């Protein structure tokens, strides 16, 4: 039982990160209708920026804030420069996916070229040490990750549900043509969506770096888990992405602990199995919209 609880808590902490990265994948998907394969690498690059600023003497929290700002601007810029020219029709999706794959390669080699491929130690944002949680213990960092993702989620919920800007962003994602006809500058909303996704990714990168060790391929596996989380939650549902992330984190941890042949080294198979199972049996995911439309 104690082992189970411990695995559950650990799973929730990694799951929060999967969920947050899945959230940025989902924000881009809702805005542009495509999966951004470079989302993880954008987060990795931002994590390097955080590390760089920190080694130059900027306090860690401030460094994360700065890199989130830069990642926001970069995400918005990617939408404007690399994505928008192809248009938003379904016909452009294949080209766009290739573009994001290209961006992924550029970012990986760019980070390697700038900072090298040796792993770098990143200090945990929330410090060392553990906190007792009932009979189990949790590292301060793990608890901090869960809290940080929770705060971010609440802020985003507030943005999307309670503000005019959030309403406009949702409108632009839901029906771009009607949004334009209502006077909403859809292009700007798409840039905002990509920017937010970039900033969330930067936070994920900074929070994950201490565990994963900072190096250019750091986020590759995590992106797969994020895809599993987004698929499980429903690709167009931000809430689903977060909950999907937590579920994937816990499932993956449990499978690694209790199923011998999976163990610690083969955990990625869990992500693939989740993706396959959801797509086969419940393609819209747990919270995705199977849009009911009457005519």
């Amino acid at each position, binding site marked *: 039982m104690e082992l189970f609880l411990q695995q559950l808590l650990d799973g929730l902490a990694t799951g929060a990160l999967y969920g947050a990265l899945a959230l940025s994948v989902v924000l881009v998907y809702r805005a542009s209708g495509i999966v951004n394969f470079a989302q993880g690498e954008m987060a990795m690059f931002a994590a390097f920026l955080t590390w760089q600023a920190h080694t130059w003497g900027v306090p860690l929290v401030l460094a994360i804030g700065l890199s989130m700002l830069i990642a926001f601007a970069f995400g918005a810029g990617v939408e404007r420069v690399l994505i928008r020219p192809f248009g938003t029709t379904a016909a452009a999706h294949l080209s766009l996916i290739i573009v994001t794959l290209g961006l992924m390669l550029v970012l990986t080699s760019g980070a390697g070229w700038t900072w090298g491929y040796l792993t770098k130690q990143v200090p945990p944002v929330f410090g060392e040490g553990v906190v007792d949680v009932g009979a189990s213990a949790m590292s301060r960092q793990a608890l901090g990750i869960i809290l940080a993702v929770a705060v971010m989620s609440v802020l985003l919920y507030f943005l999307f549900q309670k503000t005019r800007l959030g309403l406009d962003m949702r409108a632009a994602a839901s029906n771009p043509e009607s949004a*334009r006809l209502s006077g909403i500058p859809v292009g700007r909303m798409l840039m905002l969506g990509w920017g937010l996704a970039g900033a969330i990714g930067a936070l994920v990168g900074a929070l994950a770096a201490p565990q994963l060790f900072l190096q250019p391929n750091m986020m590759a596996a995590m992106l797969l888990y994020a895809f599993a989380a987004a698929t499980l939650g429903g690709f167009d549902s931000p809430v689903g992405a977060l909950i999907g992330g937590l579920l994937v984190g816990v499932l993956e941890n449990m499978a690694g602990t209790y199923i011998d042949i999976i163990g610690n080294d083969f955990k990625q198979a869990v992500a693939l199995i989740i993706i396959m199972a959801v797509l086969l049996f419940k393609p819209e995911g747990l919270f995705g919209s199977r849009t009911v439309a009457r005519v």
Partner: protein
Amino acid sequence: MSTLLEVQGLHAGYGPVEVLRDVSLTVEQGQVAVVLGANGAGKTTLLRALSGIIKGRGRATLDGRQLLGLPSERIAALGVSHVPQGRGTFANMTVEENLRIGAHLSRGDEKAEIGKWYEIFPRLGDRRTQQAGSLSGGEQQMLAVARALMPGPRLLLLDEPSLGLAPNTTRDLFASLGRINAETGTAMLIVEQNAHLALDIGSTAMLLEAGRMVSSGTAQELRDNDDIRRAYLGY
């Protein structure tokens, strides 16, 4: 009476395919103008060109201001509201959210404005927290009209509002449109296949055939035209 919308020599289409050829028309301030035409005549293309969804060549001016070439959101900001074919509601958002989106350009009190539309279309008020996609066709059309009128536009473009609606619902809708026009003075350009009802509330009418304007006049003149009577009114 002064002219609100003036279209001269408008050409528009999709890629290399030209659908509209040399179309000219006017809509006076506060008037309802009706464009009749069969499927594929170019009615939808005409509205899409006027609201900037597709590109058009020629002139289309609102109070003397050229609309062609402006992006949709700018045209909307100038006071042109377009209810597209298929209604263009935000299906996965609630009725109330749809109306709030419609208020993007309005400067007035959003709550009061929305309340006003719930009075005009009580069924929308009953369903304010429902997803727009779950409404019936008639309710969706009401929502689309209310959303388009939220900012108090000067010109409302309506693309086949009767499409897919039961005859009773269509009659109610046109009655509402007529009342709204009388009360608010919002000019309307309605394209329709359902000529009867449209001509009832229209003061001028035009006939579009294969992308060209083949006749135009007062609604009464078109009603009396034998060809139109046979083709579109069925008697």
